[in-house]
């Protein structure tokens, strides 16, 4: 009688497994949808432009960067007009020029312009596109990369107006990323 009993347990177990997985998956998907609200904020998207838009954007209205500024072959501006010609290691309150160490555009493999939440999610998880980052490296990038952190300290523009920050704090964002990764890093449908 033992074998049928075990079989019954296994069947119950298998039947229950998808249900638990579904619960976890749904939570994870929902978390990414909230994470995406940060990724799609102007502070992130302005430098995650795509090959069809080979330039950074500026401002909360995401207009094309003034002065014909281009992405350039190395994502640091056109030869002769590097990002670093104007952007230094920190925000400049006097001129309104934003700055952080290593100011540059995200590589084209990390372009988010025009992508759905699901597409951004899949791109983030693809080591061939995310800079060969595993889950831990991804969390570390979000938590400690200077250009990511800058999004929460973006300074003021040349008129003294504060730039908008993403729709949650950096700590909340990091906790959400960690929870998303811990729940299976599911992408929204």
């Amino acid at each position: 009688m033992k074998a049928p009993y075990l079989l019954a347990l296994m069947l119950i177990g298998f039947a229950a497994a998808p249900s638990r997985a579904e619960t976890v998956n749904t939570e994870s998907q929902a978390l990414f949808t909230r994470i995406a609200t940060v990724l799609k904020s102007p502070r992130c998207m302005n430098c995650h432009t795509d090959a069809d838009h080979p330039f950074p954007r500026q401002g909360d209205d995401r207009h094309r960067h003034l002065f014909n500024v281009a992405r350039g072959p190395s994502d640091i501006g056109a030869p002769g007009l590097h990002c670093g010609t104007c952007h230094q290691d920190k925000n400049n309150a006097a001129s309104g020029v934003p700055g952080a160490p290593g100011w540059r555009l995200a590589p084209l493999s990390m372009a988010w312009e025009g992508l759905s939440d699901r597409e951004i999610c899949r791109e983030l998880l693809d080591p061939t596109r995310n800079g060969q980052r595993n889950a831990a490296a991804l969390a570390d990038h979000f938590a400690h990369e200077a250009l990511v952190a800058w999004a929460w300290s973006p300074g003021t523009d040349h008129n003294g107006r504060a730039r908008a920050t993403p729709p949650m704090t950096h700590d909340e964002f990091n906790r959400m990323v960690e929870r998303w990764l811990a729940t299976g890093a599911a992408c929204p449908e």
Partner: protein
Amino acid sequence: MITFRINGRSIDVDADPDTPLLWIIREQLGLTGTKYGCGIAACGACTVHVDGIAARSCSFPLSDAAGREVTTIEGLSHDRSHPVQKAWIDHQVPQCGYCQSGMIMAVAAFLQETPKPSDADIDAAITNICRCGTYERIREAIHAASEGGKSR
């Protein structure tokens, strides 16, 4: 005290670390060839080189100059013999001239990276503003400088 090199010599500067490098260059060091234009890194009149890269000194905090090599128009050459300076004279580029030291510095850095630029390369890299509108002569002089000073 912040130490950096300017036009080949080492200097120590005692000033607020957020002071724009342009203020230090003009007021503390007396190198007035570099001009103030807009103050928001938009016009390029204040362009100098920092470690060989064009930088707009009005928006460059003194603190970021620490340990680096700064070159102003006075240090580009001792006798106006830099190919860009020669091309500028040959083509009589300046009108009022106010923007031109920044323009020359931007072009000198640009040609280091792009020795034989196309018009499109020039459009992408040289965004300095000239209120007199000498852009056509600037373009001619850039091509001349890239070809060793010959006219096109």
